[in-house]
């Protein structure tokens, strides 16, 4: 989903930070804040070999779209890009990138943090961690 102010992508491809930055940058922006998620190599001391990300795709896209619209409504920002990857990822690969531009930087910081916090609560995407001795759906059990 893409309009002049919002770029949402849910993809199997490697995410590209410069694509997000280029989308949000503009002559009248004073700053861009980016959040780049990375895949940690340890969970509770156990080595993570790789991860699977699974999504309920149409709803994941529409929930990301809602987050972007809410961010534009709530904060004085110019543009926002939210790209999320699905499929198999290795350690240090990037599952998510969020970029936000604004004329005054505080709004971009706030909106970027709001977007990643909300994404982690509402977007139907699930991460399965694979260890040497098994696998686990992250956060499923209390």
């Amino acid at each position, binding site marked *: 989903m893409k309009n002049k102010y919002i770029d949402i992508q849910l993809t199997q491809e490697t995410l590209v930070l410069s694509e997000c930055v280029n989308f949000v940058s503009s002559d009248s922006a004073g700053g861009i804040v980016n959040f780049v998620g990375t895949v940690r190599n340890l969970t509770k001391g156990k080595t993570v070999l790789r991860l699977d990300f699974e999504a*309920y795709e149409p709803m994941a896209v529409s929930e990301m779209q809602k987050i972007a619209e809410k961010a534009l409504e709530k904060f004085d920002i110019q543009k926002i890009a939210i790209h999320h990857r699905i499929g198999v990822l290795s350690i240090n690969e990037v599952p998510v990138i969020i970029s936000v531009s604004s004329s005054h930087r505080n709004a971009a910081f706030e909106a970027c943090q709001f977007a990643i916090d909300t994404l982690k609560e509402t977007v139907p995407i699930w*991460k399965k961690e694979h260890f040497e001795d098994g696998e686990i759906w992250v956060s499923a059990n209390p």
Partner: protein
Amino acid sequence: MKIRVLCFGITKELLGGFEQSFELAKGSKVIDLKQLLLVKNQTFEKLASLRIAINEEYCEDETEIYENDEVVLIPPVSGG
């Protein structure tokens, strides 16, 4: 009525497959589906949370389910 339920994440494993078909009384609500799930597999009780989406929107326990709805089980999400 028969309803079709899609299962993501851990719920797919709890029910043994992505797509399920359940028999519910006409007029059933989300809360009734949740109770049926517990009958199918008690481990549902141990999930940190379970939300239900109907036609790509999160629903309340009191939302009524209709025959052709796309009903989806949303266990705790972990994107990002």
